[in-house]
């Protein structure tokens, strides 16, 4: 065998009841290279890399690490052979400290005793290297999603692996954090570590990778040398067609009517938020992790109650105490944490889409099953949800398709105001484009949108106006013509200013 390859996957096939996730996929990783793995949602990327650790047992095929052939893999074996993986789903233990999570499964020991102190010291160092401020003693459950992901990254790096596999590591991170992660990747590469990097953000792929492997529908499509390839080709390979612009144009559709008017809304970590959104407007909310955007969305949606201030919706003051009440007023929230808050994983696509409207489509509590099916069918087609059947459980869908199901649910609910919290996180370019078109459709139909996004490009590309939050306060507003990355960043990190104002 070729010694140059540190990891080889050969003829991997994986079948699930009713689905073939991978059909004869082969892939090689060279020593010290960064290999990008890309493909649409459901292409089989996560499934493929999971076979490297035995988290998924392939139906057939073999795994060769450093020339050694494995037919059955276990997490222990993978670790022993120098493979470290950051999975797409979080894999930390909320009840243990950040330090203990870093050493999960491999604690620093003195005999049967754990050496907590040593682990905390090591953790300090690891976090410093990544340029993140986390107290090693904090329970991971008390960290934000972004920090949890940083712990994951630190954990994988700590393992001194020969191959580091990262499945959409940047999805929950903001730009600054992504930057420090890239630095670490480059450092590792210079030390001869190989990296498999999965992401839907093509700019990252171009910045980081040496070669790109494209998958489509569970099949290997092509390997490209990054510096010799162009984006359009890449997109074409991924989605099997051409995509022209990245942000579809929309007709001017902003009306005079003010749909949402927040007056001094305070609570849930936010202070005195004032904002207005007009009918048909897309209002972007920018900020760093912990800025309090999700928190604001939760209050508008009734998931958490505000402590003071007024929410005026379509001219009437409302005070939603539960999401149900907010939904009945016509408000919807597409949450950022898809698995925990968005989709009902153990329930079918059809049921998920109909969930907010079941009561409406029932007579004397009995569901009108024809209408139920029609609704689900409609949004499956509209959103191009990739599935063999509407009865498929959502947990068996790829991440991006899960997100589409959640969108379908709120479209079905016919909401007036839709709050999108990181709507394209983990979504492939093709689907992203679909979602942008959808957002346009929605506002053109007279709906109103509050868009929270940490992707600066997206925020600027899609919003009519941007408000920036920092530390729970609004620190600035930008009209379309003023959109500039630095302006947003300056406002987002205007922490000192905020503190001064407080005094």
């Amino acid at each position: 065998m070729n010694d140059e390859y540190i990891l080889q996957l050969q003829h991997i096939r994986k079948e699930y009841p009713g689905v073939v996730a991978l059909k004869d996929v082969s892939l090689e990783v060279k020593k010290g290279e960064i290999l990008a793995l890309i493909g649409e949602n459901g292409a089989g990327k996560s499934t493929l890399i999971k076979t490297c650790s035995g988290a998924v047992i392939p139906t057939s095929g073999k795994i060769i690490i450093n020339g050694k052939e494995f037919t059955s893999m276990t997490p222990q074996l993978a670790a022993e052979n120098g493979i470290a993986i950051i999975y797409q789903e979080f894999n930390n233990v909320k009840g243990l400290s950040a330090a203990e999570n870093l050493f999960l499964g491999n604690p620093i020991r003195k005999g049967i005793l754990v050496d907590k102190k040593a682990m905390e010291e090591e953790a300090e160092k690891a976090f410093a290297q990544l340029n993140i401020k986390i107290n090693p003693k904090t329970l991971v459950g008390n960290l934000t999603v972004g920090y949890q992901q940083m712990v994951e990254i630190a954990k994988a790096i700590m393992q001194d692996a020969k191959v580091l596999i990262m499945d959409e590591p940047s999805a929950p991170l903001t730009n600054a954090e992504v930057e420090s992660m890239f630095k670490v990747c480059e450092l590792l590469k210079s030390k001869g570590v190989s990296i498999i990097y999965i992401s839907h953000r093509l700019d990252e792929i171009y910045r980081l990778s040496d070669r790109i492997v494209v998958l489509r529908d569970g099949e290997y499509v092509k390997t490209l040398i990054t510096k010799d390839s162009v984006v359009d080709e890449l997109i074409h390979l991924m989605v099997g067609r051409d995509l022209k612009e990245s942000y579809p144009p929309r007709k001017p559709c902003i009306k005079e009517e003010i749909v949402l008017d927040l007056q001094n809304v305070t609570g849930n970590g936010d202070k005195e938020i004032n904002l207005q959104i007009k009918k048909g407007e897309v209002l972007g909310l920018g900020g760093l992790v912990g800025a309090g955007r999700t928190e604001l969305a939760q209050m508008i949606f009734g998931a958490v109650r505000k402590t003071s201030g007024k929410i005026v919706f379509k001219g009437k003051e409302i005070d939603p105490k539960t999401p149900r009440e907010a939904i009945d007023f016509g408000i919807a929230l597409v949450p950022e944490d898809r698995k925990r808050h968005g989709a009902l994983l153990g329930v079918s696509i059809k049921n998920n889409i109909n969930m907010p409207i079941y009561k409406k489509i029932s007579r004397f509590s009995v569901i009108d099953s024809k209408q139920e099916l029609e609704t689900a069918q409609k949004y499956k087609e509209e959103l191009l949800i990739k599935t063999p059947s509407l009865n498929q459980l959502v947990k068996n869908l790829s991440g991006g398709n899960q997100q589409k199901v959640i969108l379908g649910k709120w479209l079905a609910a016919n909401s007036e105001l839709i709050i999108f919290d990181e709507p394209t996180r983990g979504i492939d370019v093709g689907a992203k484009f679909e979602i942008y078109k959808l957002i346009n459709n929605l506002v053109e139909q007279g709906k109103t949108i509050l868009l929270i996004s940490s992707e600066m490009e997206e925020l600027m590309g899609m919003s009519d106006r941007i408000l920036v939050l920092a530390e729970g306060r609004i620190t600035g507003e930008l009209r379309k013509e003023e959109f500039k990355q630095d302006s947003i960043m300056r406002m987002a990190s205007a922490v000192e200013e905020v503190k001064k104002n407080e005094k």
Partner: protein
Amino acid sequence: MKNNVVLNQLKSKAIWVVFVILFIGFAIANPRFLSSSNLFTIARQVSMYGIASIGMTFVILIAGIDLSAGSVITIVNIVCAYLMVNSGFSMPAAIICSLIMAVGIGILNGFMVSTIGIPAIIATFATQIVFEGAAYLLSGGTPIYGFDTRFKIIGQGYVGPIPVPVIIMICCFAVGAFILNKTYFGRYFYAVGGNEEASKLSGIRVGYIKYLIYALSGLFAGLAGIVMLSRTNSAQPTAGKGYEFDVITCVVLGGVSVSGGYGKISNVIAGVMIIGVLTNGMVLLNVSTYMQMVVKGLVLVLAVGFDCFQQKRATT
């Protein structure tokens, strides 16, 4: 491919396979087992488990548990009898009052689990001992009996050849299946069982759903209590003792996931039948008490184990 479909069908119905095996086994071991009168006897005997199992199915679907089911049966026995015998209530009035009380106990469970947030296993265990104590206090520990003879019809009557309690059970199963498959709140049960947080954010009033489910569990246990009272024609403060575990066993045998979100009434029926056939068959074969315990434990492990093993193989 076709073969595979049959196999998959069989797997999802594994519990029915276990049932059929047991059934055939007993039929061979004792020919009387198959007599129509014995089959009706089994159906009559399981009717109370069947009725109570529906509420328990709902509860387990949302990853809860109702350890108070046995106590509800007991207190319904005592209260209904007390009202008829000592307070001069008419039969329907006594039944309705005691069922309302059963629902009330369910709501109390709902309050503790949903509003206060006490784990179901603890909340319903507390309810269990409180109402067991209350049943003793109310009855003074002695049986209450001497009801209107019409009261017997519920547990001992027949419509044609079919025992009334069996008809009640079938109706309850139908209602249970209807709720789960056809109504919107039945859908909510699965949703809440699968992911409470996401359900809340999809607009489901999770708190209410929990109240509803525990109230229904109380109601079905109460109904089982009424049937039991009519069958024994005498109320004992020990009537429902330990019943909850038999009922939970039926439900779990029927494949309802104790971690919530999955389960079907049709398979619960198989679970109920297995317990019925097993108990009946062992007495028919005059198996001693001690051995009955051992055998029940083993069958439980084998049946559930077979099911779990299948599923484990299917998912990795």
